[in-house]
């Protein structure tokens, strides 16, 4: 029998002054300060400070050679960043919104992801592409996509997404330091969420998941914008007598099998929660991997609470699409609890 170790729990701290947007701003400022090769470029990132103000004040502090507005063309923003990285710089580029990054898709998938492999390691591209993603902010069409699997399906890219301000700081610093290209997905509905934790680099690696809340009955696996919802659901389930563990994936590619599988082996039940559509969504990969690795520990099928398989809804209907606390609690309730005794008896025999 595999030893089931106690999880190292990393709770999210209580709300207080630092927002995720401010934490990201600090991460960029610190990186620009510490490494003169770091550049920040994109649409409206200079004078305006970005439409979400993540780059606020950086152009004034570091000058227009290092923080600058580009013409409005996403393929060119990523394509020129590739050339800059080939010449020794470390560009951090901003795509204004998730769906506006699609014109850059070819540069990202055909070049950014592949140049290291194409050149047998001779050309490294330490580039970070920041993409505000996901819904929940009342955005109109093309401003709310969850585009993570387009990127996780592409070998050569790292894909990470923070769920809290402190983690946003740490992940972005590590992403900028990474020798690999990183797609940095910022859950825009958490931009203004606050946390009191100090903004320092975590001891967690860029590719590590972590347990945000310990529990014994079921594991909720989530990331980015839905993580907060998962944590709320865990609290609510506690009131109903269920002990819920919450795993924050942080890194969507590579996937941290060890942390997720260890949790599921402890609890025997798992639900993957994300905003993105269910069909071929990230949860499908998580469920498949965990089934392969934890089959004999499972008390119930691994479920997914995800967005519907529809184009992202208009703002006045989006509340029906996004995973909610109730939907997560319903999923928890459907995890075949009544059969647990029988199953345990069989495994024990």
């Amino acid at each position: 029998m595999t030893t089931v170790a106690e999880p190292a729990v990393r709770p999210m701290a209580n709300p207080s002054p630092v927002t995720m947007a401010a934490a990201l701003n600090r991460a960029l400022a610190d990186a620009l300060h510490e490494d003169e090769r770091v550049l920040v470029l994109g649409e409206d990132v200079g004078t305006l400070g970005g439409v979400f103000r993540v780059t606020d004040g950086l152009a004034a502090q570091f000058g227009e050679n290092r923080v600058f507005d580009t013409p409005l063309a996403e393929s060119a923003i990523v394509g020129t960043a590739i050339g800059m990285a080939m010449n020794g710089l470390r560009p951090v580029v901003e795509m204004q919104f998730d769906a506006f990054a699609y014109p850059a898709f070819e540069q990202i998938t055909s070049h950014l992801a592949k140049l290291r492999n194409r050149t047998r390691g001779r050309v490294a591209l330490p580039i970070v592409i920041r993409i505000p993603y996901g819904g929940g902010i009342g955005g109109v069409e093309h401003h709310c996509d969850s585009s993570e699997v387009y990127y996780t399906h592409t070998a050569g890219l790292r894909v990470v997404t923070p769920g809290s301000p402190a983690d946003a700081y740490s992940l972005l610093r590590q992403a900028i330091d990474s020798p690999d290209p990183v797609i940095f997905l910022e859950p825009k509905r958490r931009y203004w969420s606050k946390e009191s934790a100090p903004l320092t680099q975590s001891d967690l690696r860029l590719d590590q998941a972590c347990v945000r809340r310990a529990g014994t009955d079921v594991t909720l696996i989530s990331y980015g914008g839905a993580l907060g919802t998962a944590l709320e659901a865990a609290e609510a389930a506690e009131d109903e007598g269920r002990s819920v563990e919450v795993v924050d994936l942080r890194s969507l590619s590579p996937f941290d099998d060890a942390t997720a599988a260890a949790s599921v082996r402890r609890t025997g039940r798992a639900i993957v929660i994300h905003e993105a559509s269910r069909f071929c969504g990230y949860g499908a990969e998580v469920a498949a991997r965990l089934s392969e690795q934890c089959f004999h520990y499972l008390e119930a099928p691994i479920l997914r609470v995800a967005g519907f398989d529809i184009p992202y809804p208009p703002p006045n209907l989006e509340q029906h699409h996004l995973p909610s606390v109730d939907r997560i609690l319903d999923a928890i309730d459907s995890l075949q609890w009544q059969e647990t005794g029988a199953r345990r008896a069989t495994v024990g025999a």
Partner: protein
Amino acid sequence: MGTTCPRRWERIVTSAAVARTHAPSLLPSAEPLGLLRLDGSIDSGSELSMPSDEVLSTLHRRIVLGRRFDAQATALTKQGRLAVYPSARGQEAGEIGAVMALREQDWLFPTYRDSMAVVARGVDPVEVLTLLRGDWHCGYDPYEHRVGPQCTPLATNALHAVGLAHAAKVKGEDTVALVMLGDGATSEGDTHEALNFAAVWKSPVVFFVQNNGYAISVPLAKQTAAPSLAHKGIGYGIPSMLIDGNDVAAVYAAVNKAVAAAAAGGGPTLIEAITYRIEAHTNADDATRYRDRAEVEFWLQRDPLDRIRRHLVDRGLLDDEAIAEIDAAAEAEAATLRERMNVDTQLDPSDLFRHVYAEQTETLRRQAADLAAELALSKE
């Protein structure tokens, strides 16, 4: 509002008027610029500067070597040694003239058709052909000769050239990036984005478009309604040149001028070189389906090698003995290439899992082990 708006508008209107005043100088010439006429004689009215005799002799020699390399690569494809080969026969003046005009510190961003140019830049031909042999996606170290990997998606590398050149400018390096494009690539969005970014940033870039008349089978008339491809520069505020792409002296002179302007802080130049692809798109293509023999014959009469050779011979700078020596050198290089390519390369399947990330991930380690186990089993 009342005070700032009029001022801002005034600025916009004034700068536009200044730009319009300078616009005519951005347009290309009505006819392609050349230095050598078809018979090899000098076009004394050209606004381009004739390269030195030494440079002309070198260009001639490199064209002979380049054409022989190209023929050898085509032959290797027929023998099954290469998976595919897109020939540049007929385009030697562009391939050689542009590359020879670059300085050591400059960068070349080639396409899949530019193997000849990459070899002319000094990259080992076997390393160049690694891609087309199917052994790996790029066989050479881009940093060794400052040559980007040969690019298959059209025009995407134009943006890499702009970014690299912009970084050079920011770092205070005297480096110009030249990107090779074809007529088809000028319809791609990335070409336009690259022209625009380079113009706004005043990046030291040369956009070198070889207009060979066809994008695989699609003729230029179905590609653009512009008076010329060089005309596209003015929309971005980029000076453009339309040149005879089969005149190696003109290609060299035009690129030389553009490189000098870029290095001096003048920003990018767009050059359209009119040429013709004598062979089909690749060995897998059948050009008789979209163009007739008479057209090919017409262009064979405008052969870039004949022209520079006639010029040098007529001026007494080249004789039969020298030609024989150059031909022998080309044959020797081709023989060496043939010999080096006629070996079965030993590929290591575990390479597939290397260099995907700086450090191999756990998943890739597992998949590499799975494949190794599968291979070990199949050997038993």
